[in-house]
């Protein structure tokens, strides 16, 4: 019971091949790690397994019988349960109602009795009357697991479960995962963290670019061989130190910003960005990254503290437009939402700052010819591919090319300060390397660059200096070459633990 075999699974979105003849097998009693970078196709494959996407072709067998998983309900009937990366709980409902919703056709009291028993087996307690929205992230995740088990899942898929957890919470979750496997269920652990796969799984499948590149046992693998498989052979990016670090250009003094919802916000963040230097901000997601990026851009005002700029003085109360005029360039984390207008043309997206500055004529008249010419030049210089015409909507660009377009726009006027938030998120290795190169070029041209990223490898690869953002403030700073373990410890250190 609980075994599943997928063979030759294909799935395309538009012209993009998300899955290319992928094989995958889950066995009862086993934790199977599905490893790969963002965009490798892990989540898509698992969405096929639980009936959310229909594969274009391929076969699926459950317990040795060929099946069609045409919908979430069918997946539940077959005993397949998924815990998504982002909570699928109804936050306005109680724990009890969430469990009832997911287990239709059974008396609620039976469902609750099963849930209480299953929770005890797995080593935790539940509070039926609490609202799901009031639970902490770790508790929400356990409730999601419980929801799936009580509905009879023999195969439990966990999609990047530790991405949003602290270290201690992550360790507890891994214990729970082990108990799930010991109870005879098959567990699939989808992750991009190779150490997690090595330490907590019985079998590892590696995906890259929509293809399965390897299936192996953890004892046969080392971090080096796994990295090689995940990233691919031919891109070797290395840290290149700064040639000349100059004077501070922009600095934050004891900045406080309240967080939204469960986010912590900033609580006394101080840091200083110097010309000709890349400053990397490492940290676990939700420790103030979004708020840090926002205050540097000039979106929202700190409740306390100051933001200073060399020979401009206090710029705390200046909005985004003022800061851009003073030489701030920003590459936001969500490029489709905060950097590009998808339905507007490539030329329009590129030309916004120039148009505002009057580069294409007075306010009532645009010279579209100059605009198109400049866009074409910038596209060629920045190697933005897939642009058939400057009039095509920006949303048709792939992730890497969209990011290159953002960079082409932001870097056109020799910026003094560059803010890059998760600049390579969702990009393949080659596109990421190109983006990193452009950031280094900006630094070498004398800009002060700040990179905020939850990907520690990216931080280590780029930064001349590293600050660790923990609970809304810079908890520690390291000079390159930095000790990875020391940074990791500073990321998860709790002062009030």
């Amino acid at each position, binding site marked *: 019971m609980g075994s599943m075999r997928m063979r030759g699974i294909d799935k395309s979105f538009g012209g993009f091949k998300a899955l290319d003849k992928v094989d995958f097998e889950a066995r009862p009693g086993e934790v199977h790690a599905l490893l790969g970078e963002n965009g490798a196709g892990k989540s898509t494959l698992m969405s096929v397994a639980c009936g959310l996407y229909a594969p274009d072709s391929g076969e699926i067998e459950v317990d040795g019988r060929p099946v069609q998983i045409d919908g979430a309900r069918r997946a539940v009937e077959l005993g397949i349960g998924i815990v998504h990366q982002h909570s699928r709980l109804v936050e306005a409902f109680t724990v009890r109602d969430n469990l009832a*919703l997911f287990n239709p056709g059974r008396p609620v009291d039976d469902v609750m009795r099963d849930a209480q028993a299953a929770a005890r087996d797995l080593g935790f307690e539940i509070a039926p009357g609490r609202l799901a929205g009031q639970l902490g992230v770790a508790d929400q995740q356990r409730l999601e697991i419980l929801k799936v088990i009580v509905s009879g899942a023999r195969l439990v898929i966990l999609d990047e479960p530790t991405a949003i957890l602290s270290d201690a919470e992550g360790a507890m979750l891994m214990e729970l995962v082990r108990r799930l496997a010991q109870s005879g269920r098959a567990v699939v652990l989808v992750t991009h963290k190779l150490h997690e796969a090595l330490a907590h799984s019985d079998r590892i499948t590696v995906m890259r670019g929509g293809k399965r590149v390897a299936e192996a046992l953890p004892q046969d693998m080392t971090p080096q061989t796994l990295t090689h498989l995940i990233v691919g052979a031919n891109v070797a990016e290395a840290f290149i130190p700064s040639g000349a670090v100059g004077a501070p250009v922009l600095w934050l003094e004891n900045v406080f910003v309240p967080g939204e919802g469960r986010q912590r916000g900033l609580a006394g963040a101080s840091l200083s960005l110097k010309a000709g230097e890349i400053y990397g901000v490492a940290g676990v997601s939700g420790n103030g990254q979004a708020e840090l990026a926002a205050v540097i851009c000039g979106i929202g005002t700190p409740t306390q503290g100051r933001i200073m700029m060399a020979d401009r003085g206090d710029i705390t109360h200046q909005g985004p437009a003022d800061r851009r005029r003073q030489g701030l360039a920003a590459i936001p984390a969500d490029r489709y939402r905060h950097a590009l207008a998808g339905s507007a043309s490539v030329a329009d997206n590129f030309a916004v700052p120039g148009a505002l500055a009057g580069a294409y004529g007075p306010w009532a008249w645009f010279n579209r010819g100059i605009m198109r010419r400049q866009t074409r030049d910038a596209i060629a210089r920045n190697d933005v591919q897939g642009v058939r015409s400057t009039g095509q909507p920006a949303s048709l660009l792939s992730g890497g090319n969209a990011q290159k377009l953002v960079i082409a726009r932001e870097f056109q006027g020799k910026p003094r300060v560059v803010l890059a938030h998760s600049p390579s998120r969702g990009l393949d290795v080659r596109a990421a390397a190109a983006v990193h190169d452009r950031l280094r070029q900006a630094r070498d041209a004398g800009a002060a660059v700040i990179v905020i990223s939850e990907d520690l490898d990216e931080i280590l690869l780029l930064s001349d200096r590293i600050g660790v953002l923990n609970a809304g403030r810079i908890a520690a700073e390291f000079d390159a070459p930095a000790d990875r373990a020391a940074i990791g410890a500073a990321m998860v250190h709790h002062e009030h633990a």
Partner: protein
Amino acid sequence: MIDLMGFWLISLPGFAVPFALAAIGLILCERAGVLNLGAEGFMLMGALAGVGLTLNGTGAPVALMGGALAGVALSFVFALLAVGMRVNHVIAGLSMVFLAQALTSYIATSQRWTNNAFEGLRPVLYGQDAMVFLTPVLVLAVTWLLFHTRFGLALRAVGENPAAADAAGIDVTTMRFAAVLLGGALVGLAGAYLTVAVTQVWVDNVVGGRGWIAIALVIFARWYPWRALAGAVLFGGIEALIPRISAAGFDVPRYLMQATPYLATLGVMIWTAWRRPTSSAQPAALGRHHVREARG
């Protein structure tokens, strides 16, 4: 003065019932995440159906049921647009109002129903008709349906987090369709009651903005049926006061009096927004379409 109070109390339920029925209908619809601005249109259709059936001698109960069916018919069109074809809910709702205004006016004129008074629903007890007593029962039924049944659980889940409902195996589109049709029946019934029991005559735009007030009532009630009933009594009370004050000979500008319900609506909205600046009561996915194959 005693007379004033007495007449006011007796006429109050007649004004409150349409508000209450329309508001609980809208709550059903919006709890499933479908923003419904078409209430005025659904009420007009119900009102016209009620008039047409009564004038053709069917009797009041059949006329009321016909009104509910007319509400269902128009809300089916609305559901096709807003749920099936994923048209923006605001646009779809507004287009229903304009469609119903034109259509009812045309039918009433061509059938010579306009200004044609009739005898509709008769009082049964304390000068009140049966619907006055049935309305609290319907409010109870909707409350029960929403909060004490699996259907209600699924309906609210669709309105709060369609992705979660989808993952639980609930068909989001079917559930939203059902909620829109069920809600449309109640809003249509509200319109039919207005003509069959209260005005007992058809004039163009007989609903006169009550559908819009019902939409405000839903916000005031924070999407709870019982609070909507309380709000309906409040607004019905204000509306019932207007003719009484004029009849008692108080010298108050007539047009100012007639604007009172709308002023009260405005006041209630401001009060609600001020009391609870971050409204957590609104269904989280209200007005949002659910598209599964979209890549996150």
